[in-house]
């Protein structure tokens, strides 16, 4: 048996943690499609307050609604991050004035520290595919939905020189929220950036 990478989605008490159910299979498909990383064919859902959190060092968290961690969620997440886990948070509202952004960043700050802009030259953008201009834009932000902004940077909380929390206002949850089989309709795969996130998490 070869140890495999399992994509985990964070379940939290408040909000709609399950707002992007097609993102995990899409990312799993992408990992398999481009890399040799052994990957579990289906993702898992893990409660932020559960010790099981520590079994999945990369965690994906999204939603539209306010994010209010319970004490146990905050405590468990802090331990997860301090021990070397990485949390990828994506604002499904793609709106910096929205409640998800405000409450999620507040909770992240309270838990581990304030997210700061991640330079577009960070190794994350060259971990597998090259993204010379930083994070790829999404159709949703280019459409002007949400805050009507093109976010030039992702945000991150760093620990020991590594990304502990990667925060995106770009709404990859919408961009990647489709069945992986639909990739055949696309001339350019818009999920490639997910490979970089996973490879970075696995090697940094």
């Amino acid at each position, binding site marked *: 048996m070869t140890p495999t990478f399992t994509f985990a989605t964070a379940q939290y008490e*408040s909000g709609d943690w399950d707002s992007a159910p097609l993102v995990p299979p899409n990312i799993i498909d992408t990992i398999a499609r481009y890399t040799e990383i052994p990957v579990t064919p289906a993702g898992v859902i893990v409660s932020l307050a559960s010790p099981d959190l520590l079994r999945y060092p990369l965690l994906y968290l999204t939603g539209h609604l306010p994010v209010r961690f319970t004490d146990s969620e905050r405590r468990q997440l802090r331990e997860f991050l301090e021990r070397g886990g990485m949390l990828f948070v994506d604002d499904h509202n793609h709106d910096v004035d929205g409640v998800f952004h405000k409450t999620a960043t507040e909770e992240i700050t309270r838990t581990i520290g304030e997210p700061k802009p991640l330079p577009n030259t960070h190794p994350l953008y*060259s971990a597998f595919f090259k993204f010379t201009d930083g994070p790829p834009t999404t159709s949703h932000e280019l459409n002007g939905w949400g805050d009507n902004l093109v976010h030039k940077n992702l945000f991150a909380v760093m620990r020991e020189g590594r990304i502990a929390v990667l925060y995106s206002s770009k709404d990859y949850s919408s961009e990647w929220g489709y069945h992986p089989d639909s990739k055949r309709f696309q001339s350019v795969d818009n999920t490639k950036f997910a490979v970089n996130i996973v490879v970075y998490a696995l090697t940094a």
Partner: protein
Amino acid sequence: MTARERVAAARRTLGATIGARALLWGLAAGAGLLAIVAVIDMMIGVPRALRVFAVPAAAIAALGVAGYALWRGRRVRSLPAVALWLEERVSALRYALVTALDSPLPSSYLERDIAAVHWAPVIRRTLGHALLPPLVLLAAVATLLFALPAGVRARISAPRAGDSLLRPAGGEIRNRLSPLVAEVIPPAYTGEKHVSLDEPSSVEVLAGSHLVLRGRGAATGITAALNSTPLSPALLRDSADQWRLDIVAPAKPAALELHDRNHSRTVIIAPHADSLPVVTLAAPARDTVIRTPKGALALAAAATDDYGLDAGWFEYIVSSGEGETFTFKSGVIHRVNAGGARSTTLSGALDLDSLQLKPGDLVHVRAVARDRNHITGPGIGVSETRTIRVPRPSEYDSIAVEGAPPTDVDSSQISQRMLIILTEKLQTRRAKLARADVVKESQRIGSDEARLRQHIGEIVFARLGGSQQTEDAGGNNAPAHMTPDQLLAAANAATQASAGATDFEGDETPVVAVNRPLLEAYNAMWDASRSLEVGEPGAALPPMRAALAAIQRARNAERLYLRGKAPVVIVDIAKVRLAGKRDDASSSSRLPRAALDSSAERRAERFDAAVSELASNPAAAIDSLLALRVDALESAPELAGALAPAIDALRAGHNATDALVRARRVAAGVSVARVESPRAAEWSGAW
């Protein structure tokens, strides 16, 4: 007056004299002891630990001496003794007085003889002899006490931390850094008292406190540095006959170094932070589902803080909507001014009627408290959040609809916005680029713009039912520019000719209404392309933005998302493994991590170096240990704690061996292990 009565009167006078004498001797003794301690203190300095006993000792001495004086005059209580005492001093009585007192019956003869003798002068003389010496001594001692400097008197009468500067310097001040007094002034909001410290080696303060250091002499020539960064000389001021340094305590541990000519001194500032308020939400006690959102929801919370709360309130957020469409409203209710209390309770009710909740809405409620820390805060504490949900009647129903990739118009818009970004960047860099480069890059963007315009045209004409013969995106072969009216006319014609639509709205067919923004975009993009072709990115930007706005209107008009519960997707890994094009994938490099434990070894080495230096240069060694303690306060608090007694002992000139050994054990991190398997012994390490 009989003889007995006269002796009784004399006894009263003598008794009063003895009492007064005892009082005077007692006062003189007490004052004398205080004066002796004061003089010794003035000359060589008495530690505060001893000075605190001066007044109680003086009182005990006074009581003792007075008691002794009373005990010595105890015979005055007896009339025969007083009579004898008078007989001894007044020879004219010739034992008549004693005899008269002893006689059971009054004797007129004796009474007459006794009446003839006056002993008042003897009494007066005795009174003078008895009271004068203690009075003189008391006066002398009192004069001495009042002649001493007021500071010395204060040090004896009311010893307190920080009074070392009250002692007169006595000649030239050689080292203005000793004695040194630190006064910690906590921020006003805490309501805490000032604290003074004599000869501090480290000062524990609340972050944001004022720290005042004072010493003898003028400030001129004294320099100060915080963590080796020199402090402004303006912070050092003269105050009466003392210098004074006034700083705000930093947020992190720091070493404050003071220098006066060839003297130096280090004071560690160890700050601690004001804690955030702790807020507990009592009601609602748990997350709730409310079928009928009517009435009021009781709210109750308790908040505590280490220094005092400023205010507390409840916050709510109402989320409405689903899928991609959500609206939010939030508010603050039942705000309470805590007025600095260390704990408070919040209570109130959330009026659900006023929130006009609908099925599917979520209400998030939490309690918030803010402390009065206006220096490094405010500290805001929040409770856990409770969620109140209004269920939908059909919330368990769902339809499985797979999300789709972005539609064609989305793609167009991506490109248009990207082209705007590229053009903006080019315009920004234009001044630094050669004209030829500007034109070249501008034309490249123009070419992309033309391709995009062609794409828009394809969409419009495809919808209009026409062919795509209108243009060819070949840049230089671009078709003639059509005005919006011409396009609309074409669109109308096409619509009426082919579709025969019946869903008219106003003067336009729905298809035209939908396509109008795209046609506007098409036209604006034409203008933009033209400007870009001639190398004028600045001129191209307005029409490009107009095109984007038009495309956005089109998107808003048409956008439709269907969402439902998605099926669980199991990816066929074997099928898709390495199926993607990896042309642009490449190897990358990883950056090394920094070692975590190196600081522990460095600390141990610094400790050893400092201890090695103790014999040759104790002052430098103590400074090194102080600096080590500053570093250890945050990263190795156990070591910092172990160093403190060692430094104090070294400073006080006491034996610091035990404290240093303890500190070394902590610094070196010695671990002991048994080696059980001789064979494994050589494979040292984990086993």
